[in-house]
């Protein structure tokens, strides 16, 4: 047998053997072990409320609510729900996922370039929306003296995944004023919840402190309902 023939036979056998070993046994074994050893983590840290799936701790979501039109039904535009930020809840970071914000079936980058006019315009739009949301009907800012200079970057810049579950503490502290006023809670109560759902830096130094928005909002509802 010539060497290229021998190499061909061995190559075919090797691909089959390695495909079974690294493409079936390895992933299925890891998945199986994880399902037994870390079922919560392996299945996406799902959060249930009253028996219903309300989200994943790892995956951010939009806390916008459907806009109800004059006919009493949710408004639609181009077959998509029209939504507005629900001021009673902490708002997540801007998301640029395809098919609407926080589409966790199609993660997408915003692709905003650093020197792009479009990026600047998008930032300005989000700054305006953030200031509006945090201004009471009487035209006073909930957080007195809130201006663009004080808005933390995470409240304006889209996340990488479009699914960032976290916001910065600075962002949460500003929104806390609005939440406290609307929900008739003391600022200290809300700030206490923020501290409770803030994860520290990994190993004490890696990354940034991050406030999990979904957990925080669920806790808010519990406090408001008096069930915490």
């Amino acid at each position, binding site marked *: 047998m010539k060497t290229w023939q021998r190499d061909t036979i061995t190559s075919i056998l090797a691909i089959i053997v390695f495909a079974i070993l690294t493409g079936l046994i390895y992933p299925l074994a890891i998945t199986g072990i994880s399902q037994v050893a870390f079922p919560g983590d392996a299945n996406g840290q799902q959060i249930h409320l009253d028996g219903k799936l309300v989200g994943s701790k790892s995956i951010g979501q939009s806390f916008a609510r459907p806009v109800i039109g004059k006919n009493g039904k949710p408004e639609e535009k181009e077959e998509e729900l029209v939504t507005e930020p629900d001021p009673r809840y902490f708002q997540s970071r801007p998301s640029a996922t395809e098919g609407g914000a926080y589409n966790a079936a199609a993660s997408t980058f915003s692709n905003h370039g650093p020197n792009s006019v479009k990026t600047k315009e998008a930032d300005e739009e989000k700054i305006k929306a953030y200031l509006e949301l945090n201004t009471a009907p009487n035209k006073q800012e909930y957080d007195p003296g809130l201006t663009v200079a004080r808005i933390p*970057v995470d409240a304006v810049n889209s996340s990488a995944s479009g699914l960032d579950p976290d916001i*910065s503490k600075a962002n949460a502290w500003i929104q806390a004023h609005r939440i406290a006023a609307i929900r008739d809670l003391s600022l200290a109560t809300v700030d206490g919840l923020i501290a409770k759902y803030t994860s520290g830096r990994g190993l004490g130094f890696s990354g940034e402190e991050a406030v999990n928005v979904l957990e925080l909002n669920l806790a808010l509802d519990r406090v408001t309902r008096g069930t915490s």
Partner: protein
Amino acid sequence: MTFAGWFTIGAFAVVLTVLALPLGTYMAKVYTGDRVFLSPILSGPERFLYRLMRVDAERQQDWKSYAKSLLIFSLAGWLFLYFVLRTQDAFFVPHALNPLGYHSPPANVTFNIVSSFLTNTNWQYYGGETTMSYLSQMIGLTVQNWLSAGVGIVVAVALIRGIVGRSGKGLGNFWHDMVRTILYVLGPLSVISALVIASQGVIANLSTYLTVHTITGLEQKIAMGPVASQEAIKDLGSNGGGFFNVNAAHPFENPTSFTNFFLILLVLIIPAALIFMYGRMTGNRRQGYAIYAVVIFMFLGGASVAYIAEAHGSPAQHAAGLHTGVIAGSGGGNLEGKEQRNGIAGSALFDVATTVTSNGSVNSSIESYTGIGGAVPFANLSASEVIFGGVGTGLYSILLYVLLAVFIGGLMVGRTPEWLGKKIEAREIKLAGLGILITPLAALFGTALAVATKGGRASISEVATSAGKLGIHTPQAFSESFYAYLSQANNNGSAFPGYTGLIQPNAGNLGAHGITFADVLGGLVMLFSRYAPILFALAVAGALVGKRVTPAGLGTMRTDNGTFAVLLIGVIILVGALTFFPALLLGPIVQGLTGHLY
């Protein structure tokens, strides 16, 4: 910038070095055939695999025979992966492993994907969760995550054997090296790290996508999948192909700031260990330390520049009135396209680690990096992936540079250049020179074609570059195209994600079509700049292995001291800068220096 940020970068370098040293020793034993602590468990399976594959593991191969086995094996792998992806919705695929019933990706984009995973590039025109079934991710893509990493490593091992070999022509046996790489090196590391990350929230399941009813009355769909297993080998093997579209920015691939640090370690651990292994195998550990000093110096330099630039913020942010400094409760900086939990330092470090190696995984969007911050990945790629580099590819590439540096040093002192006792002659220098120049050549030709033709410009993103017709003439548009071919030529796989080769109106490939120009050109660039340098590296090994070793004399130029390290840095920067500087000026540097909005 914060203290914690700088501490992260410093601590990372220390932890990496401490872990890579013993791994390098271990790997040297694996490839010299010595017994290691895993031998009692693995030598049985090892012999079994040789029998299954009908391999005589003792048979020595010269460089041509070694190369022949490698090429035929790669061709078989290419065909197998193409078959798997094109039959994604065939009748024999169990529904449980394609729960969403995805169709196959179009032929042109499949050509690109297959070439990409075969060459360890993992360039992705597709988004994993909207294109690939679970079976394709496992038996298709994960398999090549292992095998392409293995091929890179064995070429480096063969080259080292050529450098230190003292008798005959043999460079070892390709099949023996592959099997030992999978079983002794990648296997244990992958299993352990996959379980570590799975315990931290990287998902591992075969469920169908979740439907969530949010507390504000909206619906959210969440993609699932067997992620942990693929994530571990993706990072360990310099692969970088994400399970999800946004790669390691996705919270299911990289859920916490701890996993972020851990994944960066996985990215660099084998490339770092290989350098120490090289020192061991030459019998003089200082040979490895000298190279390690060079690459860690360049790595930390790049990480620092990227961190400073990103912490400063972008012109667009400043024009909109944002303040990007550190304030109480926020790290500030250019957080566009970055995740809160990773912050600026964790994103910059990840970005630099995955672009110095040919990993190409991302945890943030390079498209949104500032001009100077984005120039760092450009510079890393322009150095042809020798700063650590991909598993194996990095080592054999930098060894070609060492050869060049020895030659230049020899010319400067006016003596016949010698390397580890072997005379360096015209044949080796020609081969090494060609091996070094292939990648830049492919990158620049690809870019030139792409920006000069209508077919190439079809891939440029309008969103990223700016409104209307001006878009394709902005520096950002040039950067996108240039980065695409630079990344594919270096088998890196990271991208300015706006650049596309697949139009996909719906998840699951119904009605999807590829952009043939980008798909085919990219595929060819990847294949050419992977296999041509491999052949040159093996040819160099073949040329060196038979040479007689003469003992070092007084006039021999040493390759294990600081002087040589500085010379090597000079050669790397010189080659990279001379080749790429004009092109870099047109894209990232002009954006970084002017602060102008386009």
